[in-house]
């Protein structure tokens, strides 16, 4: 059981996809303009990650080695399409905001990376736990980055504005994403080294 627990918790700190593995940088930089946007992107990826991890671990033994990457991509793309339709139907606002980055989850290196490195050689339950842990770690990182950028850039937390007027606009733009990510990574390393 302890083993299973570490499978789940390693995604938060030790193998945090954003701050340690540096995977999925593209959605990390592009969609974290606010805490809500970052969290939505994280949750979307979490869904795809858990589902595709489970399916891939189930079908891995019967997939011929030569075509395993196309097969995994098709599985991942299926879940992304489902997600896309669901979001378009129930959260059209968020669907518009995240835009291109939802279909791009198909080529997110976290999802394919976990499929290759973990799900293809582990059991279904383990793979689901792994996907859940990594996905929650990703969601948490994106929410934190989004929160920092939102506080500095627009002076609000989860849409609740605490200053009048604008913040430091640069944090809503691309350079701010790099700055926020860099300094949060410094902080993350400092904290995780202490432990």
């Amino acid at each position, binding site marked *: 059981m302890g083993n299973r627990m570490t499978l789940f918790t390693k995604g938060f700190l030790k193998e945090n996809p954003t701050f340690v593995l540096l995977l999925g940088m593209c959605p990390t930089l592009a969609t974290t303009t606010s805490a809500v946007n970052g969290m939505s992107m994280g949750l979307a990826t979490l869904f795809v990650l858990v589902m595709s991890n489970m399916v891939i671990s189930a079908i891995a033994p019967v997939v011929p080695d030569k075509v395993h990457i196309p097969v995994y991509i098709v599985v991942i793309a299926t879940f992304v399409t489902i997600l896309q339709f669901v979001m378009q139907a129930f959260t059209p606002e968020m669907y518009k905001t995240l835009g291109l980055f939802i279909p791009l989850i198909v080529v997110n290196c976290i999802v394919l990376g976990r499929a290759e490195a973990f799900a293809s050689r582990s059991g279904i339950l383990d793979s689901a736990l792994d996907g859940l842990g990594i996905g929650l770690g990703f969601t948490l990182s994106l929410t934190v980055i989004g929160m920092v950028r939102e506080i500095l850039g627009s002076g609000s937390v989860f849409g609740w504005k605490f200053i009048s007027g*604008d*913040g*430091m*606009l*640069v944090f809503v733009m691309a350079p701010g994403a790099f700055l926020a990510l860099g300094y949060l990574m410094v902080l993350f390393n400092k904290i995780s080294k202490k432990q």
Partner: protein
Amino acid sequence: MDRLLVSPSPHLHSRTSTKVLMRDVVIALMPAVIVSVVFYGWKELLVLLTSVVSCMAVEHLVCKYLMHTRSTVGDWSAAVTGLLLALNLPYSTPWWIVLIGAVVSIGVAKMTFGGLGQNVFNPALVGRVFLLISFPTYMTHWEIPHGLFGIDAVTGSTPLGIIKEGLLQGGSTSEIMANNDYSWFDMTFANIGGTSGEVCAVAILVGFIYLCVRKVIKPWITISILATVAAVSAVFWAVDPAQFTPPLFNILSGGLLLGACFMATDYVTSPMSVKGGVIFGVGIGFITMMIRYFGSYPEGVSFAILIMNSTVPLLDRAFHQKKFGRA
């Protein structure tokens, strides 16, 4: 015998040190500082003081609490950054924006890379561009100077800003310039809207000549920037005088002189060799003119210098300075 130091030649000893060089830059900036205080009044002095003090404070605090090394405030480089940052801001900038600029200049652009000598980009310019993008309303709010004891201030745009807006509304350059009546005298001796360091061309040139005489900076960088700006704008102006501004206007307006004399020639962020320096200067001049003519911002000197800063490691590798004693 342990106390003998074995080191390779050349065994030259010179009195120059970071401290001496930086003090020379501070002295060279004094004419521009004095002129800006005289023309803009006490508000400008406040901006200058806030900037210098907070730059030095940030450097001291980062050294002490984050890097745990000896404080490097004593080498004057933070003071130079503070002065340059202040000269790059409108004098009406509120103190807390100056403070943010100082934190970004020293904290982000300089100390993050490891302090003096390690930074890729000019700290003062990073601070300025950060503020320009973050607080466009404060950073493009210019007031026409009315002197140290003047009471009424008039809000006005910079010459470059006026021309950009006029062109967007379909006017022609010569009309706009005639309507706004810019005499060359005004542009040379501080009578135009702009950041505090941009107003007086003569004050900046005096500082530049002082630095050249003291051999503190590399004059070929400045000269190649100004020559490129003049050449590029001469070509465009000759082709279509209705749409493009003349060479002398481009040299005297905006932050070009301040940038070319004091920012582009920064030791750490400019190429070592003459050839590299000339290419660096030509690049800055060209990018500046492209932004001024075709970009959405009216002014592009700071962006041009930062872009070319990023090429310095390549230029240094491509053009080695010839060493003595080699066949």
